[in-house]
């Protein structure tokens, strides 16, 4: 069942086209990977879905509702939450209070919000740092905080912008497990990522973007052996060689 439909999404900044006629569908409980070289337009796509940019063209339909051009808070209210590539914790608040801010999206009062926040923290296995201040925690913890906060909103669809950026391999493995766990609990995820190992192991389906356009879509194996993908990352001469299936 399609939970998100993106049709002909286009965004221009002055003379530069950042996203050009992008379309894809997302099914419930999927994990979709969005990859591509820097500047391909991935974060711009996120920003358009989440309401931070207004598309110049195209539509975004979430759960059969047209959310194109809605303000970010309205988008969140409909059930789409996002994390940021460069984390944005509320520095002056505790981790728990940070997550509570998200929790208020579903809660009717502070006590309820606190409960929901605790649950989110426990899901992320972050409960032991609940009292730490936003400015005290390190980068991987900030990533966890963003995740917990987004979870607490009760959003059905989570847009995760480079959740692995800044993490060392062991930390990444941990987050991958968390993301799988969240997915199994029913959340749909779209993940922008650069680390191919992560993408391969986490995302059953990938979209590769380059220079504002969708190049390839398919399973990780399909995408990686596609000559267009190789061209995008490595240049044409590599694509000319015989493609081998990637493991």
């Amino acid at each position, binding site marked *: 069942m399609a939970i998100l439909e993106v049709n002909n999404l286009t965004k221009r900044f002055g003379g530069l086209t950042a996203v050009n006629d992008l379309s894809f569908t997302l099914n419930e409980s999927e994990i979709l990977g969005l990859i591509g070289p820097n500047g391909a337009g991935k974060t711009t796509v996120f920003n358009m879905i*989440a309401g*931070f940019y207004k598309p110049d063209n195209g539509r975004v339909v979430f759960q059969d509702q047209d959310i194109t051009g809605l*303000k*970010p*808070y309205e988008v*969140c*209210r409909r059930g789409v*939450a*996002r994390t*940021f590539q460069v984390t*944005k*914790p*509320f*520095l*002056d*608040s*505790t981790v*728990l*209070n940070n997550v*509570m*801010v*998200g929790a*208020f*999206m579903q*809660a009717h*009062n*502070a006590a309820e*919000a*606190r409960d929901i926040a*605790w649950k989110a923290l426990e899901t992320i296995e972050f409960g032991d740092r*609940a*009292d730490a201040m*936003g400015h005290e925690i390190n980068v991987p913890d900030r990533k966890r905080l963003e995740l917990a*906060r*987004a979870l607490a*909103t009760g959003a059905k669809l989570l847009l995760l912008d480079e959740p692995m950026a800044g993490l060392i391999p062991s930390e990444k493995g941990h987050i991958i497990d968390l993301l799988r766990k969240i997915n199994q609990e029913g959340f749909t995820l779209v993940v922008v990522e650069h680390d191919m190992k992560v993408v391969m192991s986490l995302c059953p389906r990938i979209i590769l973007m380059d220079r504002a356009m969708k190049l390839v879509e398919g399973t990780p194996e399909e995408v990686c052996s596609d000559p267009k993908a190789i061209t995008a990352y490595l240049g044409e001469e590599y694509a000319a060689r015989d493609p081998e299936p990637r493991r």
Partner: protein
Amino acid sequence: MKQRSISFNWMAVAFVLAIAMIIPFVLEKHPYYVHIFILVFLFGYLSTAWGLVGQSGQLSFGHAVFVGLGGYTSTILFMDYGVTPWVGMFAGAIVATLFGLIIGYPTLRLRGPYFALSTLVFGLILQTYVVNTQMLGPINLRGAMGLLLPLKNGGDAPAVFQFATKTPYYFIALAMMVSVVLLSYLLNRTRIGSYWTAIRSDQEAAESLGINAGRYRLLAFLLSCALTALGGTLWAQYFHYINAERGMALSLSIEIVLVGVVGGWQTVSGPMIGAMIIIPISELLRAQLGGGFAGLHTLIYGLILMGVILWLPKGLNPLVMRGLKWLGDRLWSTSPSVRTPEDSGR
């Protein structure tokens, strides 16, 4: 530990309040000191009300306008239409809220310094208008003369908010200050306070979590305007006089800002603490040095403000809180308890 601290805090608050209630009787022979306390409470009230806007992340440099609007509304209603200020003060709050809507709606989304300048400019416009205008339609503003409160029964008429001695004013001012600080504290524990903190910390992140920043900032602003206006009525009734020259002055706005910033302008108790420090200093300076050193107390204001910004950007509030906590640790016996989730620091 938190359980213990919380109960200590409340005990301390109750203790301080109890003392505060006795003071006017103890100082009956020294009305000047009672006067200073009243000023502390008045400015503590005004700055805390102003601070609500600060909690949502904006700094208003024109809040004196709302003091004036409140005082003018209730006083004109009393002088020309016989309405008791006890009712008039709420009319004043409504008027202030309307102006707050006009001022706030276009300006709150501006970046910090531009919002500050815009409120300053609005304040100047309104003040200039009132100082230079006699009649606004059927309403007699009396221009630069200001409004001199007519005394009823020689100034002893509780029904119209006039009292013969300072003591009732003391209690009213105290009650108002305590109420507004309590309100601020309670709001902080709800969704509203949580959202305000989020907006001022990182508006983009807040919006991505479903917060309509514009609406919550406007709420803070309107609430602040209404409460400030109530303080304006207290001003008019206590001083028996209000005029735009002083009541809507930039200097008053700056004083409110100063008190708030020195105490800690984005906290609940900060402005109140700021008032407790600044007002007595300034009054005593004014009394001791008198006319020969005109400007000294404002100069000291300036030095204090600069010092706070440079070295204590969060104001005196954290220091005071830490001091109280230290005191609490010394007075209460140590027994470690489970760390429970607590609200973010005040």
